[in-house]
């Protein structure tokens, strides 16, 4: 009798493909989800659909070109990546960034966090079939996008950073920014109230639970980790840009239940924190130059050979860049660890045990940005098997293929 219970017939398990093309996942990730009736029993996460070889491309370009290349790593974090990269370059070149430039970088970074979190909130609402909240969230977000355009000239690819400073000064009156932020604050509190409503709680509460131990074991970062009770935030732990001076004007939001609702709360409250932080930032905004005097290309040629790591708290979590310059205004090696890559592995413990109806919500709750996280995958077309390769393996296969 005991054996009968433990062995399950093969037909009771069904594998359904989830992605890479799926209306719920805007990002091309493939989840092979094994289900028994409506319950998820196993998940296999496959990446490799949008690898763009950004790191290899970086090695063929000079430092200034690479700032714009890193901007294109991600559409939503289009300020975090260049910030992270330029910080590394400035560390190698020992360049002092003017105070005002540092504050302006922080301003754009926080505007980016607000718009990213609102975008995410809209996506979450869409996944649970709540189209009205989706429309409202994206409507609020438009105010921030307009601010981005007024300050930098672009809504998405803001091109704010340059080596040793920023490219655009703040020409928008601060009252204008404050007015938009006040609107955002009110609307965000409204969204927060909607989340306390029963219809949203029914879909979010207790879904996709990631325990604190799992969150630590799988090295999760950002709101995912903070939603599971880990107090981690690069802005507080290792302040960069102007976050050291603004340390007292924001707090790290931590929730302990580890479900989708707690991750949503973390992001909503973080949006409010960002609004307050920008308020404080505008008050303390110092005067002075915004970039180094002289041509940026001349500055670039002076960057010596060296290496540096740089960390930034992107909206999705800790973003990590390792840069090794070749002393000839180029990059020898650029390594990007996007936050989504750190968080993707946590999908498995989150998904197992939930229903099919919860899959889109849980996947959206880590706010995956797959194209940022893509690494090399080799697909054998005969057996249809894929495997991730490391550098050593790549060297070996290059030799085996008969190349010198």
């Amino acid at each position, binding site marked *: 009798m005991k054996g009968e219970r433990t062995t399950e017939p093969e037909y009771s398990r069904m*594998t359904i493909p989830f992605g890479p093309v799926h209306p719920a996942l805007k990002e091309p990730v493939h989840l092979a989800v094994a289900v028994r009736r409506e319950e998820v029993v196993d998940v296999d996460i496959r990446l490799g659909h949008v690898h763009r070889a950004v790191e290899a491309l970086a090695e063929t370009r000079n430092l200034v070109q690479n700032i714009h290349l890193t901007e294109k790593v991600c559409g939503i974090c289009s300020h975090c990546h260049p910030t992270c990269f330029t910080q590394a370059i400035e560390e190698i070149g020992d360049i002092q960034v003017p105070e005002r430039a540092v504050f302006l970088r922080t301003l754009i970074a926080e505007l980016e966090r607000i718009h990213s979190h609102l975008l995410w909130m809209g996506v979450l609402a869409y996944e649970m079939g*709540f*189209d009205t909240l989706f429309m409202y969230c994206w409507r609020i977000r438009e105010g921030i996008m307009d601010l981005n355009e007024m300050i930098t000239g672009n809504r998405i690819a803001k091109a704010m950073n340059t080596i040793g400073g920023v490219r655009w000064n703040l020409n928008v009156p601060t009252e204008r920014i404050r007015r938009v932020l006040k609107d955002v604050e009110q609307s965000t509190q409204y969204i927060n109230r909607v989340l306390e409503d029963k219809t949203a709680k*029914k879909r979010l509460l207790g879904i996709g639970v990631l325990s604190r131990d799992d969150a630590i074991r799988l090295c999760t970062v950002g709101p995912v980790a903070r939603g599971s009770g880990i107090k981690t935030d690069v802005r507080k732990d290792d302040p960069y840009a102007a976050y050291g001076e603004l340390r007292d004007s924001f707090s790290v939001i931590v929730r302990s239940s580890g479900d989708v609702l707690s991750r949503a709360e973390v992001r909503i409250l973080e949006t409010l924190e960002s609004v307050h932080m920008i308020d404080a930032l505008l008050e303390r905004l110092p005067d002075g130059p915004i970039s180094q005097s002289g041509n940026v290309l001349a500055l670039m040629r002076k960057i010596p050979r060296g290496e540096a790591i740089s960390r930034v708290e992107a909206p999705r979590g800790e973003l990590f860049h390792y840069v090794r310059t070749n002393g000839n205004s180029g990059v020898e090696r650029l390594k990007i660890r996007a936050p989504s890559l750190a968080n993707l592995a946590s999908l498995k413990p989150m998904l197992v045990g939930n229903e099919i109806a919860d899959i889109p919500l849980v996947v959206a709750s880590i706010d995956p940005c797959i194209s940022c996280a893509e690494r090399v995958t080799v697909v054998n077309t005969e057996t249809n098997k894929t495997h991730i390769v490391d550098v050593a393996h790549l060297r070996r296969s290059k030799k085996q293929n008969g190349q010198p």
Partner: protein
Amino acid sequence: MVSLDEILFGIVSIPVVIVLSLFLEGIDRKANARMQRRIGPPVIQPFYDVLKLLRKSYIVPVTAAPYIFILAPILAALCAISSTLIVIANIVLKTHMYADLMIVIYLMAMPSLMKVFGGSSSGNPYAAIGASRMMTMIVAYKLPLLVSMIPAAIKGGSTLSISDIVQAQTQKGVCYALSYPSTALAAVSFLLCIPAEAGVVPFDIPEAKTEIIHGTLIEYGGPYLALFRIAKSTIVLTLVLLASALFFYSDLSLIWGQAEYGFYINSALVFIVAVAIMLLTITVPRTIFARLKTGQALRFFWIIPLGLGLFGSLLSSTGM
């Protein structure tokens, strides 16, 4: 003997029903968009959608059982249209049929069942999940829907004919939603079942776009999808007209006296009330709610609408 009028009605009415139901869907979409602070599509957008789908090519998957796969949308659309026709004939032509309420209930069930058959025959795993969800939903809302008609049938003089119930309301002078406690409860129960039968958020679980990619409809395209679209919007028309006729039929001849065209005014009123019911039971819920899960929907229907319907039936059997 079938008269010429009846033949003409048969020929003209099918396109009229399709146009009416698509127009109703257009109003729903526009209202929904305005509530979401969008401009929204033009009211005739559903016509464009259906016409475009009809012109497109279609695919029958190799894994599908072709006859069931093709037959399902045709039967779904035919049954949905005929159910609407019966209700409209009852209101406009005052046709009297024995037990046509039963026929309408069965015809209304057909599109959902055909989606189950068509979906399961397509061989797609998402469609299989959608079909199983659809079965659960049918179990969930069909029973409350049936039970909610019992008080109206009893009050109408123990009849299963829609025109008898309409006639009884005319004689009473007040519509059933306001006249007896039993029928008022039944009306609430019926209205609560409308979004599930129409398959909109929060009860669009079998077709959840973000979860199972339209479930049973995933393999359908072109004219077959258009037929399912027509079936869906005509079912909405049937439901709201039925609700309007069974529970909200008010005779305005008391106000205007027995005018010559009073009958037309009454019929027009049924349609206006139907549009109001649609806005209340389909547009508003799908704007303000998130999608439920199957278990939650089942629990909801078997507690609130079924409870209300059973209580109403009990009351009506005691004469209240």
